[in-house]
């Protein structure tokens, strides 16, 4: 994994980023709280959490669709906030996003061919014939039949449309792809095909991905590293296999135990959480998970616990009750 070899030069660096939204009445909704995230070139990082955890807000900040309220977002070493509009537009070829709803992401009045040509028109100087050639090449890689290029979005299935969106995003050969729940609106059988395509593209093109999902199995199948969010805070992060096999934070443990395996012979012991995620407008004073935590104690209310790392520095969690022999070093900003 590239994370180990070149920690000094991340492709994307969210440095202690906070984002709040003004909701009127002098109240602010803190959607993302002090999140630090690094993505190395070619790395696939999963961002998992339930609704209101701040996943999509982080995705939007990562590609400068939304500025952070506090902290810094740097792409390839450059602070996005310091860039002029023109430079930012040029940079956008290198960072692309794919949304959950492919129906909403495509103009219904353009043909698929026109839609796939659009990024080439905006970001390249190719001639019409060259663009046409490129569109056909992309369509083939996306396993989209060429007759589809003449059709309109309404004539395609959800899976086909999502392939169109992925093709559009990859047309400018980006270094970073943000995928915001790209398979949630698709059927199980179609979903597997899209994931397979992403897995192939990632190996062939070396594009880095920030993969946002609430589906743990999808994250496990595709990602190198996973970051677990709860109420805008990072509560755990680490290599996918480590976090799935040995989840350290009680929330991650509950999330994994709530998974429904498509196999009646696999019985998981469900660890039931009480209640639901609190509103970000009424977040608990200390640990964000304190209101539902099965191992809560009074000191959990005394401020946000620091991220603690294991000895290798790869696996980290934000909980006061981690086994001290396993998670020792306390590093709030790393």
């Amino acid at each position, binding site marked *: 994994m590239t994370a180990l070899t070149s920690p000094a030069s991340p492709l994307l660096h969210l440095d202690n980023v906070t984002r709040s939204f003004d909701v009127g009445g002098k109240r602010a909704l803190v959607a993302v709280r002090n999140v630090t995230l690094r993505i190395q070139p070619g790395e696939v990082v999963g961002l998992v959490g339930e609704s209101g955890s701040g996943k999509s807000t982080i995705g939007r900040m990562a590609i400068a669709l939304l500025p952070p309220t506090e902290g810094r977002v740097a792409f390839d070493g450059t602070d996005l906030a310091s860039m002029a509009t023109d430079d930012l537009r040029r940079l956008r070829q290198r960072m692309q996003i794919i949304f959950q709803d492919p129906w909403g992401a495509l103009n219904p009045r353009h043909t698929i061919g026109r839609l796939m040509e659009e990024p080439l028109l905006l970001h390249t100087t190719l001639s019409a014939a060259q663009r046409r050639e490129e569109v056909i090449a992309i369509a083939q890689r996306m396993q989209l039949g060429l007759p589809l290029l003449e059709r309109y979005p309404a004539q395609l299935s959800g899976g086909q449309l999502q392939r169109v969106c992925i093709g559009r995003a990859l047309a400018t050969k980006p270094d970073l792809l943000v995928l915001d729940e790209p398979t949630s609106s698709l059927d199980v*059988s179609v979903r597997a095909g899209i994931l397979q395509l992403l897995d192939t593209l990632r190996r062939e093109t070396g594009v880095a991905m920030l993969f946002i999902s609430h589906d743990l199995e999808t994250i496990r199948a595709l990602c190198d590293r996973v970051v677990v969010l709860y109420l805008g805070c990072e509560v755990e992060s680490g290599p996918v296999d480590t976090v799935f096999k040995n989840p350290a934070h009680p929330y991650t443990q509950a999330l994994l135990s709530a998974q429904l395996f498509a196999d009646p012979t696999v019985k998981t012991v469900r660890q039931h959480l009480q209640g639901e995620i609190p509103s970000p407008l009424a977040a608990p004073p200390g640990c964000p998970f304190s209101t539902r935590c099965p191992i809560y104690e009074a000191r959990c209310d005394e401020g946000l616990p620091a991220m603690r790392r294991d000895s290798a520095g790869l696996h980290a969690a934000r909980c006061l009750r981690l086994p001290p022999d396993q998670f020792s070093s306390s590093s709030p900003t790393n």
Partner: protein
Amino acid sequence: MSQPSPIAAAASDIALDAGRAALSIRGVHLAFASRDPQGAVRRARVLNGVDLDVGAGRIVGLIGETGAGKSMTAMATIGLLPPSAEVTGKILFEGVDLLCLRGAALDKVRGAKIGFVAQNPRAALEPVTRVGDQLVRLIRAHSDLTAPAARQRAIEILGAVGIPDPQARYRAYPHELSGGMAQRVVIAMALVNQPQLVIADEPTTGLDVTVQAQVLDLLRQLVRAQDAAALIITHDLGIVAQYCDDMAIMFAGRVVERGSVAQVFASPAHPYTRRLIAASRARIGHSLASIKSDPPDLFRETKACVYADRCELAAAVCQNAPMEKVVSLANPEHRVLCHFVQLP
């Protein structure tokens, strides 16, 4: 029995113990007429001969992709099809064909003997009426309880579905509840009149993972406690595997395979079922399998097997309609709709 083949009919008799089925759907066809862009009349064949049983006290998972006809099967059962629907076949509940019921006769069944949990709780609840009052209205529509007694019953059921402080929440409006709480209220409404059958259409699709488990556990526990049967419609094999006793797999308006959850997962007989299970399992095993995924053309009129276009086994014989077969004589309730399954 409306099935044409003597073998299929005989197979059907083995398992159909009429006294034990809470719901028997037989040969239900459903179509909607519309005009194509050239103005010619065409029919979207949404259901193409659905056969399905829900045994008394059993929880049955009905699984399939978007457009397979899962929700339309539910809508036909509770008489909520739009007026333009052309429907034939039988849906037997307590010996009565629900498709023949109209008006007051249908109202006696719905909400009383059959409860319904809709996918979107916010759309299912009336936005301008307190949730307690909605429950009371439902209770009094189907019983002689006085207003105070009905109110008491409403508070009881709100407590039973795990809503904290039910006395206070009785007075809440739907928008004041979280998604999980609103879905609990909808479950309370489905169960308050102690129905024999609960139909839940994607009951947890809009909910978070940790809340989904809470709601499904609750639904199963209440259905069991009331000795009711349930039909849970879902596209999530995990829900079927973990919460259901029996399952039916739908594709393009047909049930292509049905049986106990243990049987179907252990020995899936239909090529579609095998691909579906493989697609879910493969993700657990970190490799990614997929299914060819052109959506079926509902307008095409054909006798061919509904899965023929996508099937890796497809051959000339698949242009004829397959009949439902028993997979093994030891488990006569496990049936499959495929030419390539040998009769035992």
